[in-house]
């Protein structure tokens, strides 16, 4: 048994260009650049191949993905109630760096990416449109909210929680470098096989993060573009505006990669979060409050009543259409969370030093889940109200232009110009802060855990993330974006499960030694 802190922890001078001689960095940059170049040269071809490969994987391994995420939730539950729950993420005398309230707020900010702004109304209504064909429209509304909450709830956050827990435990308590592969070396010792596995784990994490963040850039750009279209009442601005939004985004995030703006970034992220919360409260108060609150209360009951059972549903005995829906939504979401897991995991680990495992898991899985239920209850409920009570044409927007749905809902409330502008600003801030943080984490992973990766490395990742985002924008198709993300992140599910084994084995040993 050896401690991995004697491996190269990246003591290089941050400005040292020799950091580019690191094989992991070269290979990771090459793989992601090749994907980006392929996408730029033949966008349709990349999207088509990604969709085919993902369909094969999803058909053959749907059971495994659902079993894995349910297993992760059960492991989280067990760790919380077990004797391991008292173990601190850090030394025994370490105290939490942040108060519980600001810690929970930062967790929300991590999960409150651009996705919630994008899908707040669109996702429940898309499910509604589908489920209403199978069951009555009123029943479909609550089922649609349930499925949406399932996608954004405990299962998603237990993937993040476990990844973050492994990184936090091995970094702060076992004093390993903050790398995805470090727990493997710490648990099983350093030999040829474990070094290869650890190295591969780091590489897979890098590929998963870069493709996942690239997809979010594309979705964010689509949403900002649709917001501008609606704000200026443009029928369809086409690719010109999309490219303009993308270029503005790059102009905004490149300086932040050169200058250390970590504190500023945290403030921007909190500002975006505050805007999003403000909008939610505004819709709740200015909208049909009793209807929205009724929907939220029902959602809480529906969700906690069936969440565990639903985690094991694979829709095996349904027809092909239901299976396609299951693959393109539930499975895609689960692998999307897996894609973001190393990135969000590092973030939540960094802010959680000094907390016990019990506190960590309860905060990470329950806090954001309850927030998501409120969020979808308000935005999804407002959409349902438009559809079921006002009989508006919102479903046509859902079918034709999913990124414009949030703006359609806001248009039916007072002060639409203000609220639409705020969503555009918040979406923009979320993407900028995500890209800057992702470039930092990728730089850290690709320079042996160096907490101050060089500016050149961060800029390289900034360019790659931008290029991947641009490729996905060129595909101009949300389904293609989802397929590319799924393809990049599927292998990482194996890594997370291996990390869970490392964690459980090391915890067992720690408790045995302390006895």
């Amino acid at each position, binding site marked *: 048994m050896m401690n991995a802190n004697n491996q190269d922890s990246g003591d290089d001078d941050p400005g040292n260009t020799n950091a580019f001689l690191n094989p992991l960095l070269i290979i990771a940059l090459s793989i992601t650049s090749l994907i980006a170049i392929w996408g730029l040269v033949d966008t349709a071809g990349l999207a088509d191949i990604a969709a085919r490969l993902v369909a*094969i994987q999803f*058909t*053959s391994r749907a059971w495994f993905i659902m079993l894995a995420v349910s297993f992760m939730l059960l492991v989280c539950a067990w760790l919380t109630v077990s004797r391991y729950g008292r173990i601190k993420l850090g030394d025994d005398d370490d105290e939490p760096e942040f108060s519980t309230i600001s810690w929970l707020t930062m967790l929300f900010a991590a999960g409150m990416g651009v996705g919630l702004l994008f899908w707040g109304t669109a996702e429940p209504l898309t499910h509604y449109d589908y489920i209403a064909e199978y069951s009555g429209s009123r029943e479909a509304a609550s089922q649609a909210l349930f499925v949406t909450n399932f996608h954004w709830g405990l299962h998603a956050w237990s993937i993040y929680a476990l990844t973050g827990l492994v990184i936090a435990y091995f970094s702060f308590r076992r004093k390993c470098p903050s790398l995805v592969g470090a727990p493997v070396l710490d*648990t099983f010792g350093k030999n040829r096989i474990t070094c290869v596995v650890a190295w591969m784990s780091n590489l897979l994490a890098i590929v998963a993060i870069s493709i996942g963040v690239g997809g979010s850039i594309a979705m964010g750009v689509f949403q900002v573009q649709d917001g501008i279209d609606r704000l200026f009442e443009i029928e369809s601005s086409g690719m010109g505006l999309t490219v303009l939004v993308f270029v503005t985004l790059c102009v905004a995030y490149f300086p932040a990669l050169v200058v250390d703006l970590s504190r500023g970034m945290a403030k921007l992220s909190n500002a975006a979060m505050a805007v999003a919360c403000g909008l939610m409260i505004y819709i709740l108060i200015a909208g049909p409050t009793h209807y929205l609150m009724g929907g939220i209360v029902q959602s809480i009951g529906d969700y906690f009543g069936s969440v565990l059972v639903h985690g094991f549903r694979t829709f095996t005995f349904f027809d092909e259409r239901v299976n396609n829906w299951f693959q393109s939504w539930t499975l895609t979401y689960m692998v999307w969370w897996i894609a973001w897991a190393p990135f969000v995991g590092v973030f939540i680990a960094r802010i959680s030093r000094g907390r016990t495992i019990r506190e960590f898991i309860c905060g990470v899985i329950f806090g954001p889940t309850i927030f998501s239920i409120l969020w979808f209850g308000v935005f999804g409920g407002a959409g349902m109200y438009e559809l079921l009570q006002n009989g508006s044409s919102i479903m046509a927007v859902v079918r034709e232009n999913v990124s414009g749905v949030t703006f359609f809902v806001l248009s039916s409330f007072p002060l639409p110009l203000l609220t639409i502008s705020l969503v555009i600003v918040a979406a923009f801030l979320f993407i900028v802060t995500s890209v800057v943080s992702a470039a930092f984490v990728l730089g850290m992973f690709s320079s042996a855990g160096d907490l101050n990766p060089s500016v050149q490395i961060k800029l390289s990742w900034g360019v790659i993330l931008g290029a991947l985002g641009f490729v996905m924008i060129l595909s101009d198709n949300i389904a293609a974006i989802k397929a590319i993300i799924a393809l990049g992140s599927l292998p990482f599910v*194996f890594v997370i*499960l291996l990390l869970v084994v490392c964690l459980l*084995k090391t915890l067992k040993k720690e408790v045995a030694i302390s006895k």
Partner: protein
Amino acid sequence: MSDIVDTLLNIEVFVFIGLLFWLYFKDFDKS
């Protein structure tokens, strides 16, 4: 699709799950 690719993809998963169990239960300190 219930062909060789499907079978191989699933066998890979079975082997991986078996490997996880083995890694969890094997005592590497004794070896």
